[in-house]
């Protein structure tokens, strides 16, 4: 709640008389109510253990996990000071079904975002709960950020109380009870970034450090470079981060993409490096996970104005794990292939399909998906989906194929109110494989969304 207090203070500052004219007051945003239900099939290991090729798990009673989510997202401006706005995104959650708790359903309330922002000239000042998106991933914090823009250059500085990755509370609070060896204190996040726009493209350099509140240790210290360049025929994007704590390069990528044949083709090639990132507050990072390097190629073809096809493929090689080989070496390569297309069969009918094949350490997936969408009217759309997949999990379950289908509809009930609802079924054909437990699953979901306020040029103000 402290972030809300900060937010309130920031809003109160709007009452301070200002000599510059302000925009008239306005609010826009949305409120959404979602309910999802998934049929879960928990298992329990066979008490006495099992031999290879015999059932190792016993299916338990089916449970229905149901989660309700209520979101309210608002941005207000015209608060008496020109350039001042306030953004707030609140979320409430509740588990509505059986004892099977939807992940984080017991975390009943979150202020996902809550900040006041003031833009004046080349300055942007933000105060409250906010989120950074960069080559280092998402980092949320309660604090302040200042950005200064001057022509092609931009500099940013930020500092505040760090919030756990993907959560909206300090790690020591959010993960209490579900994670071991947590520090007692929260952490502070601070850092800065410099960005520049050049004739050929844009580049960004960022440094970010996270320390425990009592300064007894470092949670992370990383830097990243991200760049994008548009050459006459090729767009290049690149990113690479450096982990000061582990003294290694983290994730990185270099991608070149180019339109060809008057834009009817777009091809791209990438080189990628992936290393998992762990906070230094956990022991995982000191277990020295290795990277994998991957080459990827993609191509998209607009065959006609109604038909588009795409294909992508990648091959990856894991680094040397420097572990003792027992019996046989673990697989250290993987590859993936995806292909798909979209066909506008008729002005109101579109067909999308995709095939996905993946094979690497840990898992194998062979799947095909198809969606037929019918635009019944300006306000109503209906989608029919079908799916089939086969997966082999190297370390747990056996073989099998699953078939499924679903039906969903979306409707603009009014210019401000939209409804999304659907359901799907999945049936697992075990093909006599006694090892696997069934993955049969039914799922249903509905979302009601209300647009608040509006802006010129936007239909119903539904854009988020």
């Amino acid at each position, binding site marked *: 709640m402290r972030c809300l207090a900060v937010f309130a203070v920031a809003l109160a500052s709007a009452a301070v008389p200002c000599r510059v004219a302000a925009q008239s007051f306005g609010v826009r945003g949305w409120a959404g109510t979602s309910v999802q239900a998934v049929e879960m099939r928990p298992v329990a290991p066979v008490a006495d253990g099992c031999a290879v090729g015999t059932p190792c798990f016993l299916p338990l009673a089916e449970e229905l996990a149901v989660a309700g989510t209520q979101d309210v997202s608002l941005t207000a401006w015209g608060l008496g000071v020109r350039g001042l706005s306030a953004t707030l995104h609140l979320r409430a959650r509740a588990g509505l079904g059986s004892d099977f708790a939807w992940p984080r359903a017991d975390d009943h309330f979150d202020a996902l975002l809550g900040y006041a922002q003031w833009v004046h000239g080349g300055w942007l000042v933000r105060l409250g709960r906010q989120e950074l998106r960069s080559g280092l991933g998402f980092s949320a914090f309660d604090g302040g950020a200042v950005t200064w823009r001057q022509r092609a250059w931009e500099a940013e500085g930020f500092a505040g109380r760090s919030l756990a990755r*993907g959560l909206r509370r300090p790690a020591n609070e959010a993960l209490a009870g579900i*994670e071991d060896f947590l520090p007692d204190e929260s952490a502070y996040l601070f850092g800065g970034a410099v960005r520049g726009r050049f004739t050929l493209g844009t580049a960004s350099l960022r440094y970010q450090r996270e320390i425990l509140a009592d300064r007894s240790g470092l949670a992370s210290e990383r830097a990243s470079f991200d760049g994008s360049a548009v050459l006459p025929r090729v767009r290049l*994007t690149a990113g690479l981060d450096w982990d000061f704590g582990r003294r290694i390069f983290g994730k990185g990528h270099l991608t070149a*993409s180019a339109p060809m044949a008057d834009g009817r083709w777009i091809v791209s090639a990438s080189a990628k490096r992936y290393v998992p990132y762990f906070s230094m507050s956990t022991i995982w990072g*000191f277990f020295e996970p290795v990277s994998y390097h991957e080459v990827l190629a993609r191509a998209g073809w607009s065959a006609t104005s109604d038909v588009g096809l795409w294909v992508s493929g990648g091959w990856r090689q894991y680094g040397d794990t420097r572990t003792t080989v027992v019996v046989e070496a673990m697989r250290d390569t993987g590859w993936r292939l995806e292909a798909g297309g979209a066909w506008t069969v008729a002005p109101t009918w579109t067909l999308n399909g995709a095939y996905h094949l993946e094979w690497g350490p840990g898992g194998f997936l062979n799947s095909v998906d198809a969606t037929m969408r019918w635009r019944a009217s300006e306000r109503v759309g209906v989608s029919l989906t079908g799916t089939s997949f086969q997966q082999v999990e190297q*370390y747990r379950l056996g073989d099998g194929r699953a078939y499924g289908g679903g039906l969903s509809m979306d409707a603009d009930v009014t210019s401000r109110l939209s409804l999304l609802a659907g359901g799907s079924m999945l049936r697992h054909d075990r093909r006599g494989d006694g090892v696997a437990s069934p993955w049969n699953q039914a799922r249903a979901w509905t979302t009601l969304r209300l647009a608040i306020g509006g802006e010129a040029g*936007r239909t119903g103000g539904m854009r988020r």
Partner: protein
Amino acid sequence: MRPLRSPFRFAGAVAVVLGLAFVSALSARQDPPFPHERHVGLFPVCTGCHQGMDGDPAPVAFPDPSGCAGCHDGVDRARVSWDGRVERPSNVRFDHGAHAAGLARSGDPLPECAACHSDPAGPRMSVDGGPQLATCWGCHAHQRDEHFTPGPDAECTVCHVPMANSGFPLERLLALEPPPDHGVSDFVSEAHGDMAAADATRCATCHVQDRCASCHVDVSREPIPSVAPAPPGMQLPEWESEYPKPGTHDVRAFQGGHAPEGGDVSQCSTCHTQDSCMSCHLQPVPDAIVDLPARADVVAPGVEFDMAPPETHGAPFFLSAMHMNLAAVDPGSCATCHTETFCVACHDGPSDGGYHPASFVSRHQADAWGRSQECATCHETAAFCRECHEQSGFASQGRLGAGYHDAEPIWLLRHGATARQSLESCASCHRQSDCVQCHGTLGAFRVNPHAADFDAERAWAQSPRTCIACHTSNPVGSGA
């Protein structure tokens, strides 16, 4: 035929438009013309009725209708209904007194009224409504071969008053023929602006300011104020607004960086209202946009946009492979059109964003192992993955059960390589304490999980608390 002499250009040129005046007057006449020929024996001179038209600075151009009743009294002559000359629309600039004065200054004799107003070959007082253009040009030569050709010595204002002062009815407005130079291909996009900047009075000859305001958003911008607005009651046609795209806007990067230098939006306000900008820019909009007029406050609609994503967004792999880099490199660009709640809707969404296919829960394993996308971008491993895995019975509760990992009997001896390859997957089921059972100094096997080049001193300096999770004391100092 002699050219106009510049000192008296204006006065002399009025003769040119004398004919135009009458042409205009005739075409707009509302009453039957006065039958001059029937009064030929009654009025010896024109100035008897048209007093002072021969040079008086304050002439009385038309007689009082009451004078007609002197003869047309209903007894000797039938009464007549002529009630005086009605002011007739004209865009011709002509003043009899100034004309006479000009002639006097140049030493030229004042022509007889009939020289311009009567058919020279006809009887006296065969007033036919006024001189034709050729009559004017009998004395005055237009300084261009074509009537519409502009030039410093042939300005429209020499002969014409602004259209706003003409009183032209709608049909006469619509009947005006555009000059040839209006037909050039870039007239709307480029040429007319240059012409107006060079001489807006020329525009005003045929246009009222309302014509400018039908397209131009900011009519206070020069030279538009130089064109007089239509007076109240003047009927105007319905103009269609036309906004050709300037060449500058076709530059590839224009959409990504069109902020005017120094925030000066005066050029933008030719075509754009705030509303144009807000088709894409989020509220609160940048200062520069606030300086533009709002659509509700101006006549012109301004350019209306449908929100169109930039070129980058149309790439087939934008969502899966491109957008993260762009967001990292230039978050300000994203913020032009998206609030951060837009990101949250997918990255921390209640699964209504449609990011994963509907059956993803059932088949996310391969994607998770391969890390084609970074799960941790949106999901905290312990709170999201492990919480569900534990409830589903997929995660270990303490020491490993025999059924896990395909029931491989020697899995424990082989797991190191897999752990280093996909430690995030391990962490989605296992707690740190699971590992410490064997790897910790108090564990069963005290297996060192660090690589040979592990820098223990550095690790201790950076995060001693984490070291103690396995070592119970300073591993550097104690050698544990």
